[in-house]
């Protein structure tokens, strides 16, 4: 039905705008961090409210869509996926805001040149986020595999960075403050990678209902039996 398709398209457009905004926020947070650009960091903090509004609006649109059109099959899965997507994007924006706050509150640049992997993890997770949202809107099932591979790489980088930061603390107690801030940032950056992975995992779910997360967990199809 045309009205239903129009509504579905409105949801798609709004969710895509939210993806763009969250992605830009993370990109700007990275730039603010690397260049210690406090003004840019402030802009990111201010933009977080916009993402919150997007989340509420899309949530409402999905609720209305479910109530009014009772979608089935691919459309039902799409709405469920959008509801998950916006939660992930909202978290990405929150982490970007938190990273920007660190830029505003303290000078954490001193240790960064000692950690060559630091910039790598920032760029990798930004790339993951972009690819994940592109994949979501293009419904390109093949891309998501590479995002999952990248996520493993991000996990390894996080472990290495944590070890390097611990070593810096052991080497010089004067590094403690800066290292704690960077540990926190690395943790948030790794979380953004996780959120991107979750977004990518929604793509096969929309296409065929295939659930690819938590591979080790098996659900009983008939829990009442």
């Amino acid at each position, binding site marked *: 039905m*045309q009205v239903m398709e129009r509504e579905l398209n409105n949801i798609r457009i709004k969710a895509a705008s939210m993806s763009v905004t969250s992605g830009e926020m993370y990109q700007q947070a990275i730039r603010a961090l690397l260049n210690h650009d406090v003004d840019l960091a402030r802009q990111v903090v201010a933009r977080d409210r916009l993402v919150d509004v997007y989340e509420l609006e899309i949530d409402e649109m999905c609720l*209305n869509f479910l*109530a*009014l*059109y009772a979608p089935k099959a691919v459309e039902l899965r799409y709405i469920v996926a959008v509801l998950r997507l916006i939660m992930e994007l909202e978290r990405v924006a929150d982490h970007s805001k938190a990273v920007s706050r660190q830029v505003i509150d303290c000078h954490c640049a001193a240790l960064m040149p000692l950690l060559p992997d630091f910039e790598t993890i920032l760029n990798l997770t930004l790339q993951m986020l972009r690819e994940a949202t592109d994949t979501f809107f293009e419904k390109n099932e093949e891309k998501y595999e590479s995002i999952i591979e990248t996520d493993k790489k991000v996990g390894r980088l996080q472990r290495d960075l944590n070890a390097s930061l611990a070593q810096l603390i052991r080497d010089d107690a004067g590094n403690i403050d800066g290292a704690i801030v960077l540990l926190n940032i690395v943790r948030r950056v790794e979380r953004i990678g996780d959120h991107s992975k979750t977004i990518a995992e929604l793509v096969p779910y929309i296409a065929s209902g295939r659930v690819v997360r938590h591979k080790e967990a098996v659900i009983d199809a008939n829990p009442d039996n």
Partner: protein
Amino acid sequence: MNMDLMTVDNLDFYYGSHRALKAVNMPVVKNAITSLIGPSGCGKTTLLRCFNRMHDLYPGNRYEGAITMRGVNILSKQEDLISLRSRLGMVFQKPTPFPMSVFDNIAYGPRLRKVKNKNILQERVEKALRQAALWDEVKDRLNDNAAGLSGGQQQRLVIARTLAVEPEVILFDESTSALDPISTQKIEELMVELKKDVTILAVTHNMQQAARVSDFTALMYLGELIEYGDTKTIFTRPKHKMTEEYVSGHFG
């Protein structure tokens, strides 16, 4: 901006001594679709039939209160029913084609209104059939008997016949309940298309249909209007517990 085409003010309706509608108040918004929902016997069809005074066909029926359209109470004794019913057309549950050709079915109303010019009649017929999304399917068989059309086509023919006299309002009384899902979808799309030109009031047992097509929804129960509101609110955050129970299927 929503504009009310009609308002129902404290409307009571009696079948003899039985009070079937109790102090109903609601607006009917212009160029919108309003659905009346509720369990069987709740009065929704009774209310719909007040709008074109169908109840006047039987003695002993009585209206109290008003349905006001442009400052005039259409329930008043002075109202000219022929003119009223051409302004408020009605489409019933089962298609009611007249036993005549497709063309004559549509031309019936205009001919009653003394339109004799063949060209004008042809224009009217084509316009109405196009508005009802039936033209492409019947343009080569305008002289065939309407009884030969499928159920869904017959229902669209009836809608076209209603449109041919250029009504302001179309009242749909369960107009898709005798149709298959594909024909139902066509009628629903047609209703949404038609609200550019007319105001629609529809009775439906199919709650999902009310949700899909209507802008406003009214829930009735035991002759009373329980809740009226925009459809999104009624189906997501109704104010009354009874509405909540009815739309979620837990009623009664």
